[in-house]
């Protein structure tokens, strides 16, 4: 660990060091501590929308992706209260969409699924909502399935064409909000850009057309070790 780093802070009693301006979640990662998140993309302005990275900072609930480290900060992360909250949020996301893992191309690479395993969700405590959501197959290279969307805003914040957003929120509220794809811009995306969009999506809402199940079972991202292991075992 580089002790020349400027800021000292603790996560669950572990001494950690951070650079000035670094978010708690990124600094934790650099110090070998996994804080789960579904919306965070390193290097992109934090959305703080999935709420899964909720930690206690000096005793207060804050999102680790939106909070910069300050010197002497005390962070609680892997504690029953927070793990319980995270599991509940993951379950909320499962029941408020239509996530059929066995048939989903993202299965094994899906961060929502991986977190559900990590937090040992067996069956959601909440009743399934089975909401009616749409699919949009208008783009040449992208298949956009809103049934699997968890509205993390990753695509909204990162996928652009000519500097313009390809994806955006539409509507508001618990029953009407959804993510839409700009028909014109989406049709201009190249195959590579479509692949990147698919990879930025933590779930299976953005899929690249004309390919499927490319990675065999056993070789997928989370087949062997739980999500976060790469950070913790570094």
């Amino acid at each position: 660990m580089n002790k020349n780093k400027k800021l000292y802070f603790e996560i669950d009693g572990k001494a950690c060091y951070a650079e000035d301006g670094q978010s708690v979640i990124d600094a934790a990662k650099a110090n070998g501590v996994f804080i789960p998140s579904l919306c965070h993309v390193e290097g992109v302005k934090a959305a703080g929308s999935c709420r899964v990275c909720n930690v206690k900072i000096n005793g207060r609930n804050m999102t680790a992706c939106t909070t910069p480290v300050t010197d002497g900060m005390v962070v609680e992360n892997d504690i029953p209260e927070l793990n319980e909250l995270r599991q509940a949020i993951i379950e909320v996301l499962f029941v408020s969409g239509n996530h059929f893992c066995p048939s989903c191309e993202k299965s094994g690479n899906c961060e929502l699924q991986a977190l559900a395993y990590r937090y040992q969700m067996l069956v959601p405590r909440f009743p399934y909502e089975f909401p009616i959501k749409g699919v949009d197959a208008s783009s040449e290279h992208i298949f956009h399935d809103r049934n699997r969307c968890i509205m993390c805003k990753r695509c909204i914040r990162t996928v652009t064409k000519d500097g313009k957003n390809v994806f955006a929120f539409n509507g508001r509220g618990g029953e009407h909000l959804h993510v839409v794809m700009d028909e014109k811009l989406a049709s201009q995306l190249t195959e590579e850009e479509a692949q990147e969009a698919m990879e930025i999506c933590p779930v299976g809402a953005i899929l690249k057309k004309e390919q499927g199940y490319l990675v065999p079972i056993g070789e997928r991202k989370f087949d062997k070790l739980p999500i976060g292991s790469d950070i913790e075992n570094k």
Partner: protein
Amino acid sequence: MKDKIANLLKQYDNDRSRLIDILLDIQEIYHQVPDEAVGILADQLDLSKVDVEQTISFYHFLTQTPIGEYAIYLNDSPGAYMYGRAEVAKAFEEEVGISFNSVTQDGLIGLWDTADIGMNDQDPAAIINGIVFTELDPAKVKKIIGEIKDGKKVEDIAENVADVIYTKGILRTMVKNHIHLNNPIPYDDQEVGSVLKQALDLTPEQIVSEIKESNLRGRGGAGFPTGLKWEFCRKSGGDEVYLICNADEGEPGTFKERVILTELPKMLFEGMAIAGYALDARQGIIYLRYEYRYLLAYLEDVLQEMRDQNLLGKNIAGKTGFDFDIRIQLGAGSYVCGEESGLIESMEGKRGEPRNRPPFPVESGYLNKPTVVNNVETLCRVVPIIQNGADWFKSIGTKESAGTKFLSISGDCNAPGVYQVEWGMTIKEMLKMVGATDVQAVKVGGPSGTCIDPTQFGRSIAFEDLATGGSMIIIGNKRDLLKDFILPFTNFFIEESCGSCAPCRSLTVILRDKLTRIIDGNGTQSDIAELYDWARLGQTANRCGLGQTAANPIITSIENFRNLYEDLVKTDEDYLSAFNMEQAVAESCEVVGRVPNIKSH
């Protein structure tokens, strides 16, 4: 259309941050934001179409389908039903010949449900093309629709329908103020500016310290110490500082700001000028909720009057170098924009999604500049504090709650309206003051506040006990608390959630469905326990204060009215509430034409 929109854009210097203004103007012209206009805006502002649409679709009063030449927005909040909203809605539907949330075939009239419009003391009320119609009944509805069909102007219809027209300055409206200043902090319209001049003899630092010393706390609900907020902002430095007045009271049952804006606009503007001086701000902005658009011309008129008196503008009141002016920014219909950072996002022409903190607005707010957002009432209180001193202010109220509070009182009482009371008044005293007897519950602080039962009526209205932004809904014994209040309030939060935080967006729906099951008589004891546990998950998980309190109707009603829930649930231990056999087979029975012969239990 292209030229028209290009002209509009020019008016706003092609400034993307003025998108709400631009969209409101377009909506006004076309009774919608037409698809073609979205395309033109996207091109001109260098945005994708979906990016423009994400702003439009966030706001209730911006639409991408026509709303009718006469768009009738009838308040749909629980308070309105207490005063006969159901009959009024029925009358509208019958007279117009369509159901709510649709437009007549000829495009003339649209009927729309709308969340609280701040008229709870004179509901049922509706907004028609920006003009508020109050105390509606079926006879008035008939008259209104008749005159619309005759092609009359909405202003004229309002005059014809009103029992009394309230007139102040250029303001002519049928909205009554029902103001009860039984413990007034003195203010004389004649002396407007005198306190500002007094303030200008002090240094900005002295003003901040006086406000700090006075213990003035934010009157919007959160109760943050005002002086401290100002001090933080001053510490952020920077050459550009903004003062924003939050006039977006959207919580059902809140309407005191409407009354303050109508009765005491000069006090507000004077308070803003003092705050502007204290903060070294040159620009003050009032974020006025769209529902109060009928006040816009009047407020602009008062602002102009004050400019003419050199109380706004350049070298104010003869103080060289003190320049400060105020502009009014209209909202477009969103409860979450009452949250200060959501409000700032909206002012920048975006979806009003509350921001992550840090940074706080005092460090990086409007256009990323240090910004103070204060409530209307808070800014008004600045004036008497500077006039009479912090010690005088602290002598009123309680230890932690200095001064007075404007309460919006509505519901089952003889005299609903706006009351100025000393902090520390008990609920019992308040109920007596407004003539309320036979009370089942008081919703303190509106839906996001707490719902208390009569055993708690000895508690006092103060930050140290029942903190409130001022909404008081009195619910009589004959009312169905869970079905007619807790359920619609929960629906209100579902509808108004910006949707950014997963728990606020989705957990509220799960809660609503479980609550519905209990209300429908299909719940069990364990449903009550789960409902309570699940509701509490959102309290810490959500980003903003509104999301954190969205489950409060459920939480506080279970805590204080558990008996109402218990009366509704099945006591049979084997009853499986999650599954209803009859419902499950209903569709297939219909297909095969069989009468269901399975009892769900």
